[in-house]
């Protein structure tokens, strides 16, 4: 019963942290989608320079640990560029966290989108060209709608991953769910209860998202029945 009290007592504070976690997840997913879409289109473009830049971006952000990227952006960059002075010391850490997460997600989303587009049969774009569509029109009306459907499962996977990744913001002093828990544990040493509670909160959020994705998938798979 005592353990239960600790958990109930900590909940309001943890929910505040959870709010931060959700905020950062949403920002990272949104920005990551934008970065990923731009970068995927660069990846498939006719210009070699764009393909090269996008390739490098994906390789760097997929080839290094997210925690290293975050620490580098939050603690490393300001030692050579006066970012804290430009944005203000209150704002810059938030920007570093959001941008760091979004860049990382964007790299993975690039690959998901690229694979989705490439998975659409070549005949589809040939057919589109043969009825006089431009490259852009073919992309917009024929390829992307079909590709998008196939992207949903891996994208949702990536969104769930993003939510879990936000826990890596704790080491860069962003007061999200895990950090809030660490502070509470430093006071009451009830690690088992508090960290368990945190795990449950993550589980609830991610489970909700994956259920929603399942629903979305079923809605879009009407033709597959």
């Amino acid at each position, binding site marked *: 019963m005592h353990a239960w009290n600790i958990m109930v007592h900590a909940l309001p504070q943890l929910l505040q942290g959870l709010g931060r976690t959700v905020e950062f997840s949403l920002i990272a997913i949104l920005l990551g989608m934008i970065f990923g879409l731009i970068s995927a289109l660069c990846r498939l473009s006719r210009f070699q320079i764009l393909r090269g830049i996008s390739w490098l971006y994906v390789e760097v952000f997929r080839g290094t640990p997210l925690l290293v990227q975050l620490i580098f952006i939050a603690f490393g960059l300001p030692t050579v560029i006066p970012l804290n002075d430009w944005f203000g010391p209150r704002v810059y*850490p938030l920007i570093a966290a959001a941008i760091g997460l979004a860049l990382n997600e964007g790299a993975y989303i690039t690959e998901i989108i690229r694979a989705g587009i490439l998975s659409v049969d070549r005949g589809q774009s040939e057919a589109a060209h043969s009825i006089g569509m431009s490259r852009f029109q073919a992309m917009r009306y024929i390829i992307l709608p079909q590709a998008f459907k196939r992207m949903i499962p891996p994208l949702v996977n990536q969104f769930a991953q993003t939510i879990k990744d936000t826990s890596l913001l*704790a080491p860069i002093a962003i007061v999200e769910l895990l*950090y809030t828990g660490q*502070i509470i544990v*430093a*006071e009451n040493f009830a690690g088992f209860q508090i960290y368990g509670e945190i795990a449950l909160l993550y589980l609830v959020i991610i489970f909700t998202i994956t*259920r929603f994705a399942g629903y979305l998938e079923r809605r879009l798979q009407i033709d597959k029945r």
Partner: protein
Amino acid sequence: MRNKKIYGSLLLAGVLATGLLAGCGTSSSKSASSQNNDSAQTIRVAADTTFPPFESEKDGKVQGFDIDMINAIAKKENLNIQLSTMQFTGLIPALQAQSIDVAVAGITIKKSRLNAVDFSNAYYKSGISVLTKKNASFSSVDDLKNKLVATKKGTSSVDLLKSKGIPAQNIKQFDNINDAYSSLVSGGADAVVFDSPVNQDYANTHNDVHVIQSIPTGEYYGIAVVKNHPDLLKKLNDGLKAIKDDGEYAKLFDKYFGGDQSGVVQDELAPDKVALDE
């Protein structure tokens, strides 16, 4: 059908998780202090190596005041030391889980911590100080009301800042004090408030910062020990007394604090007498 599958797998996951947790709860780690053989007893000591001059890592070797001290105590009491390093916030939980026997990390003796672990007698009298850039315009902790203050996560410095009325959103808590210092230097914080010996050590080795104020807090450092292991606790206290008596303890102050004696605790100070009321 799909739904059934999902719920089935969820149920399975739940069962697995509870099994795991229950397993964690009951698996008793063999605590070294419970083995009593004639040869030297091995104790598992954990330190947090981001706390110079008490502990730091140079060329892959853990060193510092605390490390030398625990080694000297071990020698006196015929103990073998198996040293590991972990983050400060993990030390007390690790003692609770009995995955280590002893933690040295300049740990302030506090009432709240005494509920979770045992402490040796005090070995260092510490305070907290305020470190700023040399060109900063404030002179004391009271000037920090609307400023950003960096410190280490879950330490007594956080409690002090809160008691001084500094709002939580202005306190940046880092896992690692080096990140707090680098945040000060790169303009991410206006001051670092932390244990004076560590701040002093940083100021001695970096010339763009200085300590503007020392706040005597009546804090004492102790060696944290797994609860309910009186023999081990007694050995540590005996060893501590022995090195105080033969002068080894005093030598550590020459080596790590340039002879500054302000932290010396020559008498036997029991932890419950010096524990902070937090």
